[in-house]
């Protein structure tokens, strides 16, 4: 049964909160610590390689268009790989300790 059928005019408070949490999760796109390390390395390596590689390619072919084109393509691909929270960056979630029983009021 969909939400709209159950409550045509407005969502209940708990549904609103759930939706907020979901949207926040989508827009924040959090990744775990291992993923952050991976992204950091990837960004540094790819951008430096793209800079040097596109310069050499353009110089060899004597075309500034090729240099800037190659660099732009590399950057767009890098952004697509690095920006969204792909599952490969979320393989090592933080394992929290169990909450101790009886101490929480």
């Amino acid at each position: 049964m969909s939400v709209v059928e159950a409550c045509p005019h407005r969502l209940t408070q708990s549904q609103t909160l759930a939706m907020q949490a979901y949207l926040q999760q989508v827009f924040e796109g959090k990744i775990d610590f291992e993923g952050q390390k991976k992204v950091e390395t990837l960004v540094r390596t790819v951008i430096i390689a793209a800079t040097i590689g596109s310069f050499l390619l353009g110089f060899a072919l004597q075309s500034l268009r090729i240099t800037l084109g190659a660099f732009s393509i590399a950057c767009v691909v890098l952004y697509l790989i690095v920006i969204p929270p792909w599952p490969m960056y979320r393989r090592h979630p933080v394992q929290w300790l169990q909450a101790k029983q009886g101490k929480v009021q």
Partner: protein
Amino acid sequence: MHTIYARINNTSAFLSSCVTALLVAIALSSLAFTADPKGQLAVASIQVHPGNARRYANKKQEFAFVNFNVSAGTHLVMSARAVSHVHACSKPDLSPLFNWNTKQLFLYLSAEYTDKKGVANEVVIWDRIVRRKEDALISTTGRNKYVFRELSASFRNIPPANYSLKYNVMPYVGVLTYGEAARTPQPVAFPELQSLS
């Protein structure tokens, strides 16, 4: 790097540093190209005619009219039929100035003379913009595009002038560079005033 915004921020910051480095490298790479093409320039004729100053109807002003050839190039071409017949390839080739970082060339022809008071003058009388490498073979017979007049309104007693063809290489990224492609071998004297018949 934990959220999307942090990743966009960090990546873009590092990217902008690398773009700057890339552009600096491109600008510096222009220094590796040291082409200095030479051609020859000859002044075919000069005439000096009287006229009215543009702004003041009663003031007399002399105008010089310069015909020139940007002609003989640096490469001597042997005629196939007679080896003794050597003629100059009539095109100064400025295409070596076009490298990957050259946007266009600005060519200008200037008259250089020192007047009676010892002031050095340089008057641009013709120019041309070369946008493509294919157009960099300059072979032209022309006359001054721009009005050539003396500050004192007369060319009488003005010492002979040298004429030179200069270029300005405009890069996509980097500094403008200047050079001289041709120069008249001897200074050319201004003739006596001719009246318009």
